[in-house]
Structures are given as C-alpha cells and as structure tokens.
C-alpha cells in the first residue's frame, strides 16, 4: 500500500492547482474504498456516507498543505476509519430506546453471510479486519494508522478472524 504512483502524485498536484478533473480522479479512486471501509465498521449506510464525505471534505480543505510525496489513500483511510470507530463506539454506548407503541420499520433485506458475522465483532476488531483484508494494509501500517502497538493489531486480527470463522462455520 505504501507505493505512490507518479500518476497519483500528478493528480494531487493538479488538484492543488485547481483541476476539478484531477480531484474527480482522486475521488473515483479513493472514495469507494473509504466509504466501504466506513460502512463495514459502522453498519449504517447513512453514517458511512457522512463519514466518507467528511473525510474527503477534510482532504479538500487541507489540499494546499498536503505533501504530494505522501500517499493520499492511507491519509484518507486513517481519517475515515478512525471516525467510523468513534461513531460505532458512541453508538454502542448510547441507550437504544425503541418506541413502546410504534412498530419499527422493516429491516432492509440482506443475504450476506459475512455481513452479520462482521457485525458481531466490536468496532475495534471490525476496523483492523477491514484495514487488513479490504484495504490490504500490513499490520505495521495498521498500527500506524490507528496509533496502536503492533502486538495489539496482531491480537485483534487473530481474535477477529477466530470469531468470524466461528460465525461463518
């Protein structure tokens, strides 16, 4: 993941100079994965949209100061995944109060075997699984992105995978 192609560097430079097409190229390349990563951590499409959008807006606001020799993706993913973890943690501790006299809307239909299994993990484990297996960061890179010791990342990966295997099998 650490490699930075010349084309991406050129796009960053172009976007810094005001090129909408270069910005759009960056958006096309990086937004889908940031959005998917956020969704897999928060399990809420609207929240994932907000998180990915706000992460990209943060990128736009900081574009002038961005060092174009650094890769854009990890920087964006760091913001998106950390915000998603914060959101999921806040959601988990907030008391869910359902109406006593109003039936809830029908849940959306879904037929993914992995999705409920990932949902059963806590947000910290979800995040390392997503970073490792969706975004393909190494444990060392994940440790840097999440500001965690490498051992913690490895243990979360191991426990997360064990739980997923148990759920899927």
């Amino acid at each position, binding site marked *: 993941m650490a490699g930075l192609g010349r084309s991406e560097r050129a796009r960053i430079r172009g*976007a810094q100079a*005001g090129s*909408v097409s270069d*910005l*759009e190229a960056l*958006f096309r390349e990086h*937004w*889908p994965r940031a*959005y*998917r990563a956020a*969704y*897999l951590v928060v399990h*809420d*499409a*609207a*929240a*994932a*949209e*907000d*998180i*990915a*959008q*706000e992460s*990209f*807006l943060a990128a*736009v*606001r900081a*574009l002038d100061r961005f060092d174009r020799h650094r890769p854009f993706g990890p920087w964006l993913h760091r913001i998106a995944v950390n915000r998603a973890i914060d*959101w999921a943690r*806040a*959601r988990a501790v*907030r*008391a*869910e*109060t*359902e*109406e*006593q*006299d*109003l*039936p*809830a*809307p029908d849940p*959306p239909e*879904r037929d*993914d*075997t*992995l*999705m409920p299994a990932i949902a059963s993990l806590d947000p910290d484990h979800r995040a390392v699984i*997503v970073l490792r*297996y*969706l975004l*393909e960061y190494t444990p060392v890179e994940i440790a840097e992105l999440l500001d965690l010791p490498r051992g913690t990342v490895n243990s979360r990966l191991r426990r997360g995978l064990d739980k997923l295997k148990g759920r899927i099998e």
Partner: protein
Amino acid sequence: MKRELQRIEIPGEHDARQRTWRVVQAAFAERERVTWPRRHARSLVLAAAGAAIVAAAVTPPGRSVVNSLRDAVGREKVVGVRPAHRELVRLPASGRLLLESPGGSWVVGESGSRRRLGPYRMASWSPRGLYVAAILRGFELVALDPKGDVRWTRGRKQRLAFPRWSYEGYRIAYLSESTLRVVTGDGEQDWGLGSADPGVAPAWRPGTHDVAYVGTDGDVRVADADARRLLWRAAVRFGAPRQLLWSADGSRLVAIGPQWVKSFDPRGRTLGYAPIKGYASAATFAPRGHRFALIVRPGGVLVVGADTMRFHNRLLFAGAGRFNGVAWSPDGQWILVSWPSADQFLFVRSTGSRHIVAVANVAEQFNPGARAPAFPRVDGWCCAS
C-alpha cells in the same frame, strides 16, 4: 476474504457517491473563490463606508447596524441600509408575527399593532393563522384565537412543550416530557406516538399526517401519526439534531445539528450533509422552493439550498453579537432576523437587491415597564392575506 468484503452490497451506494461528489465539488469550488472579495474589496469598502457614515451619524441603533457592515464587506454587497426605526411601525410584508417575551406571547399585526395574548409559551400558528396553540404554566395545552380567546385546553401531569399544527389544522403534535403526543385540532382525541427528545420540536410534513421528530437516542424519525406507525429512522452523528424543518412542498426534511446540517428526502434517504464552521442556532424554510435561512454563530444568516447544501458564499447578513431567531415572510420576500445583541429586528430582503430595514428598541416594546427588558423570541410569521 477481500472478495467477500467487496461483494457486500451497500444500499444506495451509487446515490451516496453522486451526492458526495456534488458536495466535494462544491467545497472545492468554494476553495477557489477565496480571492473574489479581494478583487472587489475597493468598491465594496467605498460603498459600505458611505452607508456607514450616513447611518452612524443619526442614531446609536443605526451605528450597530452599520458595525455589521464591516463583517459583510467582502462577502455580500449590502446596500440600502438606513438608520433603524425607533419602534416597530409596520411590517415590510403582509402577515402577522408571533413573539414570545418573558411576559408571554404577543401577536404583531401588519400595521405594527401589538397584542399580548397572555402568559403563554412556545406558541405556534395554525396553518392559516386562525388559531394559536401554546403552553400555559408548563402543563396545559391551549388553543386560542389571535384575539386571545381560549377555544379549548388540555392539561397533563407531565411538562408540555412545542405544540405544532399539521398542514390543515386537524392535528397538533406536542411533547409531553419525553413522549411525542398528537391531539386532534378540536382537542377531543389525544394519543402517544413514542419516545422523543424533549428539547426538539416535532415537524409535520406538509400535506400529510406524517410527523418528524428526534428520538431519545438522537435519531431522526418520521411516523404516520394516524396509523401510529414509524415510517423511517435515520442516524445522525456528532450530536443530536436541535431542529427539524420540512420544505413547504414536503419533499425535503432538514435536520439542524449544533455544527452540521443534513437533508433527507421523504423516504429518509440522505440528500446532503454539510458541516458548519461555528454553531447553528435556528433555521426556517422559504415558503416556496427548497432554500432555508440558517443562523450561524459567529457569522450571521446564511441562505442554504437543501438540494445541494451549498451555502458557503450565500451569506445574507453578518453582524457582531448574537442572533436568536429567524422567520421568512409569507410572501417569501423578506427574512426577519432577531438580533438581541443590538436590540433590533432586521428585515432583510431575500430577493432582488439586498435591502435591510432595522427596527430598534425591540425589548422594551414587548416588556413594557420592565427595568431590564428581555429580547423576545420570534415564534412565527403567518400568513399571507
């Protein structure tokens, strides 16, 4: 594993991508426009300075209006500012205002005439302005006419808040502590709908009996009040919403958070989201279209398009101090901004050339005889005659 993670279908991903790109593109365009005021600074400064000299020389309230020009220069061309009127003589557009001061609710007629309704709180107009629903002594829901004659009352043991009429006046939604309740317009039948944030007023979707409210968990919810069924709910982030408002055609629902704004379509799909630099305190939709006025502190009054959430350079008015309320005139031509820091009402023209009518000494007019009169809150501007 990667293939499985990529295969998971996310509902509405394509729409989310398009919405986000629109917002990102708008933010990027705004970033480029930073230099615009510099090109026009000289002419704007000259125009504003001319207006400032005229206005500041006449009255102290005029000075406070003009002080705000300093903030406006470079962002909006502000013309036509005159010294503030010493008191509210006449509204610039048809309709009547509903205000609340510590002494109770007031109705202000188009001619500027003032009538105190009584010691009511949180009053709201019925759709055609024939009635007012309000809270009396905290525990009584009252329907009365604009002359102050009470039509019916309903008492409860719980503290009541935020009565709001449905589009045709057949329902009133209100909060009974942390429960959303609905009563028929004649006060005869009353039922509960669910748990709700006691600090956020419910909002009826125009043309329906669907009511939007904020749950105690901070989610935005919309329920069919007659079927007593939840239609949809949507999670929001970074603090629970403080205000909900529907566009007049019922096709946009906007949730205002402390530092963000989010718009939904009638089925609960997110249309736009925008973080706010500062602190959003009040908002109101235009009587037509999808624009809404938003008060942001520090800053001023912004006009925002609910479809795109683009508003960075749509500053309507900027001023020092605090603004605490906003109302759009029924004809859509004027926006009333209440400005306690300057003890003024500002009527800002929302269409055509920018024009501002300022009215001073507002607090005293609605707290006669008080030693330290409190500034009134604007509860609504209704209805076109």
